[in-house]
């Protein structure tokens, strides 16, 4: 088994290394890596290098994984080069695995090459240790959001605002969803709080907080208020007054140990101190407005984790490509595999689904009764996209490129989950199907 897969793998790598496409990719990647400049600031350059350069290299190599995957088997079958392999005692599954491994290896190595170049470039660049430091994003306590939803529900129930015919659970679910996805207005003399959880040892580290908001004048105006941090004993450990000059976001620093040696949580409070007569509300988001970071590892480790996550995607793309290549001729395989990837990309995130939902609600508002057909189509496409979302979730959850660019530590548990599902389980399913096709198909060639 090892020898048979090895032979196919070596042939695949060899053919890739001697193909013009891979040579062209190599040159293109050097160009991409060396050609990117920043926006003049250290932070901007760092972000450009990490997200733009790596994002472009990732896009190029993703396309290569997919299309080389398509061509590797399809071209060999079409030209008759596959004959010798097809009549040998090698099971089709080994042929599939060998080809897939070869493509993944080549692309993963090319990505590693880009990352090493980038790392060297960043190391030799004039970045301070602080600029390249990596932080971990602290989690908002989910119970605090649930408690907030419950408070809102109780308040609405007391005021008799809950319409009849809807169960309490449904209303609570709607309030919770709204809290997670929408901005709320913090009116003058009103305060709002965010509760954060600390992992063991976090309290001994300095914490950096970023508070983002939308002022009454939008992007051009400041706010009146203050932002403060309270420890578990409700003592204020840091405070920052916000004025006209604070536009969009402010940062707070909590020195190491200020939260208490064994602290497991802390609270961030924003109070709008504008005049209730003349002032207006400030828009904040329960999930996005306050981000809390603690130092965690270095850039090299973060890049390594990003490499694993991106490589997992290459594994999935190569699996789609090789499977399509085992079924169709190269042009057809390239078309079908690209269509599959487009569906995956469209299905990612909730924007499409939300758009559809909004359309349906809007339609209902206008008293346009949906026909059985449109209802069925809506349901089917809803199912498709929710399935695609679920399939892609292990990969999208990591947010590898975004986090790398923002110097936020990539969660190793999420990377592990991503590699398991995206690089092993999903390719295994494609591989089983591709092997079945290779076993059943006829090889017609001149």
């Amino acid at each position: 088994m090892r020898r048979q897969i090895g032979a196919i793998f070596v042939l695949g790598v060899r053919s890739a290394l001697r193909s013009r496409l891979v040579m062209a990719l190599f040159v293109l990647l050097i160009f991409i890596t060396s050609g990117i400049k920043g926006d003049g600031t250290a932070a901007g350059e760092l972000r450009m290098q990490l997200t733009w350069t790596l994002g472009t290299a990732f896009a190029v190599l993703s396309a290569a994984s997919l299309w080389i995957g398509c061509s590797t088997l399809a071209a060999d079958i079409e030209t008759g080069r596959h004959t010798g392999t097809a009549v040998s005692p090698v099971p089709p599954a080994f042929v599939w695995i060998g080809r897939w491994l070869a493509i993944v290896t080549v692309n993963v190595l090319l990505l590693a090459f880009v990352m090493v170049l980038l790392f060297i470039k960043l190391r030799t660049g004039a970045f301070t240790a602080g600029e390249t430091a990596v932080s971990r994003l602290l989690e908002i306590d989910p119970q605090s959001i649930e408690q907030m939803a419950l408070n809102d529900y109780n308040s609405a129930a007391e005021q008799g605002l809950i319409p009849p015919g809807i169960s309490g659970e449904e209303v609570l679910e709607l309030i919770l969803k709204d809290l997670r996805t929408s901005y709320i207005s913090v009116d003058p003399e009103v305060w709002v709080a965010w509760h954060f959880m600390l992992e063991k040892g976090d309290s001994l580290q300095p914490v950096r907080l970023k508070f983002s908001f939308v002022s009454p004048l939008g992007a051009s105006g400041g706010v009146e208020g203050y932002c403060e941090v309270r420890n578990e004993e409700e003592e204020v450990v840091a405070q920052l007054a916000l004025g006209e000059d604070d536009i969009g976001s402010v940062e707070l620093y909590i020195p190491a140990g200020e939260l208490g040696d064994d602290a497991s949580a802390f609270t961030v409070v924003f109070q709008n101190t504008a005049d209730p007569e003349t002032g207006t509300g400030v828009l904040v988001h329960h999930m996005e407005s306050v981000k809390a970071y603690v130092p965690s590892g270095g850039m090299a480790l973060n890049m390594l984790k990003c490499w694993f996550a991106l490589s997992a995607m290459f594994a999935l793309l190569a699996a789609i490509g090789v499977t399509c290549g085992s079924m169709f001729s190269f042009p057809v395989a390239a078309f079908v595999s690209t269509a599959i990837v487009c569906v995956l990309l469209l299905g990612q995130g909730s924007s499409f689904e939300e758009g559809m939902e909004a359309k349906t609600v809007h339609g209902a508002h206008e008293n346009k009764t949906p026909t059985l057909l449109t209802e069925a189509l809506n349901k089917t496409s809803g199912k498709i996209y929710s399935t695609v979302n679920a399939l892609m979730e292990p990969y999208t959850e990591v947010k590898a490129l975004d986090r790398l660019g923002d110097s936020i530590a990539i969660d190793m548990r999420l990377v592990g989950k991503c590699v398991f599902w995206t690089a092993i389980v999903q390719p295994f399913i494609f591989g089983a199907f591709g092997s079945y096709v290779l076993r059943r198909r006829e090889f017609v060639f001149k």
Partner: protein
Amino acid sequence: MEKTYNNDAAVAATNLTKIFRDFWRRPKKLAVDDVSFSIRRGEVFGLLGPNGSGKSTTIKMLLGLLRPTSGNVSLFGMSPEKRQVREKVGYMPELSHFHLYLTPRETLRYYAGLFNIPARDAEEKIAYLLDKTNMTEAGDRPLGEFSKGMARRVGLAQALLNDPELIILDEPTSGLDPIGRHDVKELIKELAAADKTVLLSSHLLAEVEDVCDRVVILCDGHIGAEGSLSELLEKRDLVRMTADTAYEEQITSVKHDIEKDGGKVLLDRPAMTLEEYFLEIVKQEQKGESSK
């Protein structure tokens, strides 16, 4: 001496039919029509026929590359798709398609891997086969630089790499020069002597005649004739006598006696074939070169 065969069939094709269909599954071409034959172990069997007669399609069905529309194929009593069967079969296709950037040695290493041959054994086997096919010197040149004939030699080496019990050769001499053709014929004879079963497909009748024990002649997808060469080619109403030397009087006397009883006599001198003459000249030249 008459060769003896094991009665077990190495290849058995029963009522083999292949219809190629179009995209809508409508029948497009009847390539093989109800063909049945069997090949005994140790036999050199010829599959003859003009272009488009269904030889290659039949071979592909024997190898499991195509599935019969109806009928049945078995190699060594099993389906050709079984791994145990594929380990015993060597195949040289009509056109040798290799990865052009690989050298013959690398190509053979790849196939050795597919047949699970340990690296050390593989290297020995590859050296032997490159020598056998006169490719040792070209063993480390990329296949892209090769002529068709040289690529065929690599194809032959590849077909023999796993020491197969059944060797299927589809037009093995196409593209080869007379020396190459002669070498292939000698190799087939060696394989036959080593009790290997050989299925040879060709439309070059002279080479089939030289090496095959039995043949099937395919015409438009069905069997036109089948049998041993002696059965098929013998002209039962003619007799040929060949003598080293004969005096004119002796010839006249024999001729007279036969014609007296109403027989017709045709006298001629046996001639070499062009191939035999060509090989003799080349050998003489090579001897001269080596003695210089």
